[in-house]
């Protein structure tokens, strides 16, 4: 029987004009997604350009080392440099104090020569254009002023998608003393509802659904299924949520496992329908195994950090540059929004290095291929073995 199936419109996201290609903080990703930077250019590259808007990133902490703080710091700094509203939750009593430790973008003269030369050239060319209008009869002093202005113009033009951050230089106060930065301490919250409310109200300013009538005319009856409202308010930029050490033992609400799970689930769905990205770090070893797996399933992007053992002779033989490595970053899941094709990375384990003790760098591990033919394809037991043959779950 032929039924007339009319489909009036499909879902699509109505992103405001501010987030078109002109805005440097957002770039187009595959499958109709938009990407923002994580604050670590190497991580952006590995994830396929950046973090898609609407995704929930979860970081499994290692109790032996605070490497997750490096990720969090760079993520927050990147958002603040781009003037994106930020909500930061942490188990410490004074989360605002943490903002003073965020890194500042590295200045041009400190920049390593990465592939930014072309953009720098463009900036310089524009600056030279301005310089020629300064006038011929300038004294030396004026010349100096001109030079300072010149440098300022170069800096100003370098609004980039992703910045290099200098961990030794703190971020200027004016970046985080505005109204757009909100902090909340999770230490004394009796339950998770207060945090959930703050997140929901924060994200409500970034909501973006357009109005659709998804009606099907089927065998004689019509069903009006989903109606959402148009939001014409133009949002200047995207929102970022950073939640540090969710479910840390010092928080009162850490025992309420199902409440936590419910919170993460509702946060995930709210973020998905907003022009925002959320990152949650949690101590995976302190959460029960069952719930840890449930949390992992909820993540759009799942990474874990691991400390490197000191003076491990075996590892030192296995890896080049062992002395410079401070830890490992394992990427378990890459965000796949609007597509079912999984992303297969060349390597899921990256080494975390601090170049000149200032710049966070992620590198592929340099090592000979591990013989992986020991596993059989169809394990008779229900569980499947991990991808690595080492207990340290390194995957080269």
């Amino acid at each position, binding site marked *: *029987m032929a039924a007339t199936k009319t489909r009036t419109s499909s879902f699509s996201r109505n992103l405001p004009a501010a987030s078109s290609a002109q805005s440097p903080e957002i770039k187009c990703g595959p499958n109709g997604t938009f990407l923002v930077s994580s604050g670590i250019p190497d991580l952006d590259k590995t994830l396929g350009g950046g973090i898609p808007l609407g995704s929930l990133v979860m970081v499994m902490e290692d109790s032996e080392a605070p490497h997750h703080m490096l990720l969090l710091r760079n993520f927050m700094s990147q958002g603040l440099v781009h003037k994106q509203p930020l909500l930061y939750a942490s188990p410490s009593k004074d989360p605002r104090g943490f903002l003073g430790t965020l890194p500042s973008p590295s200045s041009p003269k400190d920049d390593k020569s990465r592939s930014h030369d072309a953009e720098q050239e463009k900036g310089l060319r524009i600056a030279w254009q301005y310089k020629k209008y300064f006038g011929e009869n300038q004294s030396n002093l004026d010349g100096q002023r001109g030079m300072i202005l010149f440098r300022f113009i170069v800096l100003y033009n370098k609004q980039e998608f992703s910045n290099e951050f200098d961990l030794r230089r703190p971020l200027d106060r004016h970046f985080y003393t505005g109204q757009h930065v909100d902090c909340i301490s999770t230490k004394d919250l009796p339950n998770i509802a207060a945090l959930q409310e703050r997140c929901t109200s924060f994200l409500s300013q970034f909501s973006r659904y357009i109005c659709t009538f998804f009606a099907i005319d089927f065998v004689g009856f019509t069903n009006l299924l*989903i109606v959402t409202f148009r939001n014409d308010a133009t949002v200047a930029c995207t929102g970022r949520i950073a939640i540090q050490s969710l479910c840390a033992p010092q928080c009162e609400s850490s025992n309420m496992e199902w409440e936590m799970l419910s919170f993460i689930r509702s946060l995930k769905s709210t973020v998905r329908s907003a022009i925002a990205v959320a990152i949650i770090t949690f101590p995976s070893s302190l959460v029960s195994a069952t719930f840890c797996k449930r949390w992992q399933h909820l993540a759009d992007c799942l990474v874990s950090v691991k400390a490197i053992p000191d003076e491990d002779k075996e590892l030192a033989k296995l890896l080049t540059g062992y002395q410079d490595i401070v830890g490992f970053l394992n990427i378990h899941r890459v965000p796949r929004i609007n*597509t079912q094709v999984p992303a297969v990375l060349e390597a899921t384990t990256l080494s975390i290095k601090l170049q000149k003790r200032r710049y966070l760098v992620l590198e592929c591990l340099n090592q000979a291929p591990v013989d992986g033919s020991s596993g059989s394809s169809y394990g008779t037991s229900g569980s499947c073995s991990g991808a690595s043959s080492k207990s340290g779950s390194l995957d080269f």
Partner: protein
Amino acid sequence: MDSRARNLLDEALGLDQLTQSKSPLGGKAVLIEDCVETSGSFVLHQLIKRLLTATSNSSNVVLFLAFANPFSHYDRILLGEEGKAGGGRSGLFALFANITKVLNSLPEGNRKCLTIVIDDVSLIEVAAHGSSDHVLDFLHYCHALTSNHHGCSLVMLNHDDFYSSMDRPVFLKQMEYAADVLVKVKPLATGLAADVHGQMTVLNRDQCNRRGSLNNRMSNFQFRIKENSVEYFYPGART
């Protein structure tokens, strides 16, 4: 069925033998299990596509309870395949009431064409705050709809890796017991590969054949997921 090429999954699910039957999945309950490393949602997408594009039976109806992703995500993946979707979130009773309402609103003869698709069961558990008894009851009620009286089909997605660490994974075992077809999706034991995204095992519990013995059919094969389709092949047999 139709002239579309049958693939290994169709054979394993018995979809190719149901040309005469009205009900697309033969009134079976299908349970798909996956894990963090390899997502099994592509099986859901493929089944939904199969159901909605079957030309021999254009009155197939899919009732999609989507908890994991917004509809825009599925919309994009399914590329405009039309269907009927709905989802209730307030209370499992209300949810089941909605399902029966949809079922009853269908004309008598078409009730067997309804397929209920759940993505995914673990999120129903979260919504029920962990009371797995209530969730099991709900699933049993849904399963009851697949009986001969109603003849609907049921497709559920669940993750088995968090039950396996429990002492008595009662919830999972009950679901596996109730399911007629069990599809397990796992990564390859040897690690990641661009050509092969994982392996799957399909256990199809047929009803008794004429001689009275059970015909359980188990298939193992590998798969590679592409944008609009999935390739299934035996290990080493990929062209």
